[in-house]
């Protein structure tokens, strides 16, 4: 089994939201022009992911999953509401973002000044809903694991956006071919950073190493595996 620490480290590095799954790319590209705003948005993402994923975890396990309603009435153990999960998750995300925004405005005006404009943007950031959907797909066994995953993914996203913003600030002084300026070079840079981050795939997790790991690897990596093994066969 993977330990909580494994899940945390994995979410930051080898399954980085940006470099392995491209989640939250829209705001990643739009808000990475300066390091300062990037730090603001990154912090807001960590914050919202940390709050929403555990809430969605409880929702998934006590309301939506097949048999999740058993605690209310044993007769309901066959009810499977998982088709409702999209609408529930997005509603939770949107309302929590709204709530967080109000709370932050009331109790931490300084933080609100820094995060303010980014918070409403986050409701439609793919990485937040993506975090909830990955949590559902991977079926973490405890809420602690799910929280570790959410904090890890948030930190991974933060690292990615701050790094690209720093590069973009410096690249202003380089002689980039005109048609590539701005968006084009950012895409290619992100690709190169993604290749660098792939080095972290080699990290060995858990006591038994990779064998245990296979079950939890997700589609992207499985696809690679399939094509690779097809060739070896």
């Amino acid at each position, binding site marked *: 089994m993977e330990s909580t620490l494994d899940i945390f480290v994995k979410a930051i590095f080898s399954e980085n939201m940006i470099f392995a799954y491209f989640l939250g790319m829209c705001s990643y590209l739009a808000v990475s022009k300066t390091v300062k705003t990037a730090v603001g948005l990154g912090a807001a993402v960590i914050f919202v992911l940390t709050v929403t994923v555990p809430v969605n975890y409880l929702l998934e396990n006590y309301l939506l999953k097949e048999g999740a309603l058993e605690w209310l009435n044993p007769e309901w153990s066959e009810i499977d509401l998982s088709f409702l999960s999209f609408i529930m998750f997005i509603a939770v995300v949107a309302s929590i973002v709204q709530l967080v925004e109000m709370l932050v405005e009331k109790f931490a005006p300084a933080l609100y000044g820094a995060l303010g404009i980014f918070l409403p943007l986050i409701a439609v950031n793919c990485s937040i809903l993506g975090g909830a959907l*990955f949590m559902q797909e991977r079926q973490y066994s405890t809420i602690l694991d799910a929280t570790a995953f959410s904090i890890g993914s948030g930190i991974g996203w933060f690292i990615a956006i701050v790094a690209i913003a720093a590069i973009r600030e410096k690249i202003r002084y380089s002689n980039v071919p005109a048609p590539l*300026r*701005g968006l084009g070079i950012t895409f290619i840079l992100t690709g190169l950073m993604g290749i660098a981050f*792939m080095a972290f795939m080699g990290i060995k997790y858990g006591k038994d190493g990779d064998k245990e790991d296979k079950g939890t690897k997700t589609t992207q990596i499985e696809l690679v595996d399939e094509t690779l093994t097809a060739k070896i066969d």
Partner: protein
Amino acid sequence: MSEELNKTKKPSEPLFSKKNKKLVTDPLTDNNPITIQVLGICSALAITVQVEQGLVMSLAVLFVLLFGNITISLLRNLIPSRIRIIVQLVVVASLVIIVDQLLAAFLPDVSEKLSVFVGLIITNCIIMGRFEAFAMGNKVWPSIMDALGNSFGYAWILILVSIIRELFGSGSFFGIPIFGSPLPGEEWGLYTMGYMNNNMMILPPMALIIVGVIIWVQRSRNKELIEEH
């Protein structure tokens, strides 16, 4: 404001007027949702490993955007502007649930490969962007044209990227081998001459680089699109 505009030229506009045609053709090139507006990147990159997935994803987005635009456009005068984001999210989420259930029922293989990315159509910025920017202020017919234009603009980039990635990454197109077979012992085609698939193409970072190159080509053809920095 657009309401007034519509009222003044009430003497009906032909269905395929120049303006309406422009709504479809613009997003294909000079106002492409992916390469120019930078919307909907998240899903566009992750699922372009094979052409089949790219095609299914494009169709799913077409469905959601088309019916979403129609719904929002019909409801546009009833939605209070303060809660419009929530209303839009509910409309998208219900349409995505339909798509997800249909895919799981009729194309289980593809549905499994697309995994969470079907659900992520909800937060696909193209859809929310079109609702907010177009359907909230326009009649049903132009909204349909706008939805078609934008989803075709999204689709052709997706399919182009997935063709490149599948062709060079797995040597096939739509699962049909193009360059022959690399299986040891029964090789044929190019592989007998020592050709090898480029495994980089299958990995996530190459999708970004391919889109970067598409942007490069597009902007060097149309100088107006070049950014300052």
